[in-house]
């Protein structure tokens, strides 16, 4: 851990920027990609922000008290700013020319952070991969897919068209999209809210006791796969679509149609220790046994 008490900018790194004469040579890059590596000493619970319009962002946890950035940029049409302000590291991709093609402005980042880091990531297209980080996360993308594994904290993910996959995520998860599909696998989260307009939502894994799962879409399929050991209260409604159910609910709930609710199911499976709410406007809801 750093012994410094610095709270404001102590390191500033501008690649190919005019502010760092020693690095000016990098501005005369060939058309091929170049790779740069930087290290930032941080204390406990650092904040790392990444803004990258085009390219992949891969974040992994490691045991060092530092943030390491490996940036690969396609050409010198794009600049990478990485600055440290106290316990915060800001990584920002800037396009040098408005007329540059998307291929030439791509920047890919591999970032290693302490496991308790808080992440704020913005990526229009490319992809975001995060693994083993336990701090809070806020991820926003347009077309970029988001893939998380073994993460925790308060996770907020918002995509326009990107898909979202989360395996073994813990903490609290809120994900929303318009056309993105979601795959939620073996979650350890105690609160899950997932909403996509036109995408599919797949949930497979145990419904944890005292946890809440709210899955919603307008069209598409919502599919949850439960095991006989699970215990949950279920509410599943599709106003205009179908509901298929393999869970034996108590009190017995028959597939029925009510004018206000459309097709709906309400009841408890086993002792009802988790709360599962599935709702769709015009989509199909499948509640299936897990193999």
């Amino acid at each position, binding site marked *: *851990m750093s012994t410094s*008490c*610095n*709270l*404001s900018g102590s390191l500033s790194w501008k690649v190919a920027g005019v502010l760092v004469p020693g690095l000016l040579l990098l501005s005369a890059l060939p058309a091929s990609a170049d790779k740069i590596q930087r290290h930032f000493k941080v204390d406990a619970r650092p904040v790392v922000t990444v803004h990258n319009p085009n390219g992949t962002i891969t974040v992994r946890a490691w045991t060092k008290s530092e943030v390491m950035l490996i940036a690969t940029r396609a050409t010198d049409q794009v600049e990478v700013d990485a600055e440290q302000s*106290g*316990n915060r590291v800001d990584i920002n991709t800037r396009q040098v020319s408005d007329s540059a093609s998307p291929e030439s402005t791509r920047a890919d980042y591999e970032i290693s952070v302490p496991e308790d880091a808080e992440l704020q990531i913005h990526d229009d297209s490319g992809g975001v991969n995060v693994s083993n980080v336990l701090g809070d996360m806020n991820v926003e993308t347009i077309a970029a897919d988001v893939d998380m594994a073994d993460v925790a904290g308060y996770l907020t993910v918002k995509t326009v068209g990107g898909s979202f996959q989360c395996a073994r995520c813990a903490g609290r998860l809120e994900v929303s999209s318009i056309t993105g599909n979601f795959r939620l696998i073996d979650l350890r989260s105690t609160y899950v809210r997932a909403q996509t307009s036109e995408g599919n939502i797949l949930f497979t894994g145990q419904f944890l006791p005292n946890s809440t799962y709210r899955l919603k879409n307008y069209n598409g399929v919502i599919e949850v796969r439960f095991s006989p050991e699970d215990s949950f209260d279920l509410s599943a409604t599709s106003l205009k679509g179908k509901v298929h159910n393999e869970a034996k609910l108590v009190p017995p709930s028959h597939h029925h149609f009510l004018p206000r609710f459309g097709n709906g199911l309400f009841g408890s499976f086993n002792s009802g220790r988790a709360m599962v709410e599935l709702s769709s406007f015009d989509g199909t809801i499948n509640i299936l046994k897990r193999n």
Partner: protein
Amino acid sequence: MARTRRTETGEVPEAVSIRLAQQGDAAAFERLYRLHSRRVYSLCLRMVGNTAEAEDLTQEAFLQLFRKIATFRGESAFSTWLHRLAVNVVLMKLRKKSGKETSLEQVTEPDEESGTPRRDFGAIDLRLSGSLDRVNLQRAVDQLPPGYKAAFILHDVQGYEHNEIAEMLGCSIGNSKSQLHKARMRLRDLLQEVVREKAREERRAAGGSED
């Protein structure tokens, strides 16, 4: 636990207000503001020494807090989190004002780094005893560099513990202790100057020569 810290305002516990604020409840935001604004404002005021600026900084610190309140999960005390934001906001302000980096390590005199007095300790210093009052102390605190000042205000004035301060300042507990120690030593230097000046005035008033 800070010696003057309150945990509740009226009948609504802080934890309840936080939960309601996380749901966007306007009254809960106001309760949290009323509960903590005085201490945050005092911290800002002592750090920048100007009421208008201190109010702006207080507003900014709370704004940052409320923007992020949904992510608060109670791992550290709410006030610790708030003060951490406030300190950050103040230091950013000072940095903008000075046009250079301002960090908690910043000191006015490099040879103070060790925290030991510079003077020959063979000479016996004047005792502060009768000259130390709130007004003199406040004037001296105003002259401290930012890092010392923050540690002193948070620990000796507001009563936070070193582990809390370390979290607020983003540094180690050892650093917090070291900053506080340096702050007290510097204050003693500043206050002794007041004692000497007072002695000089008394001599002038008595018609004696100046030293």
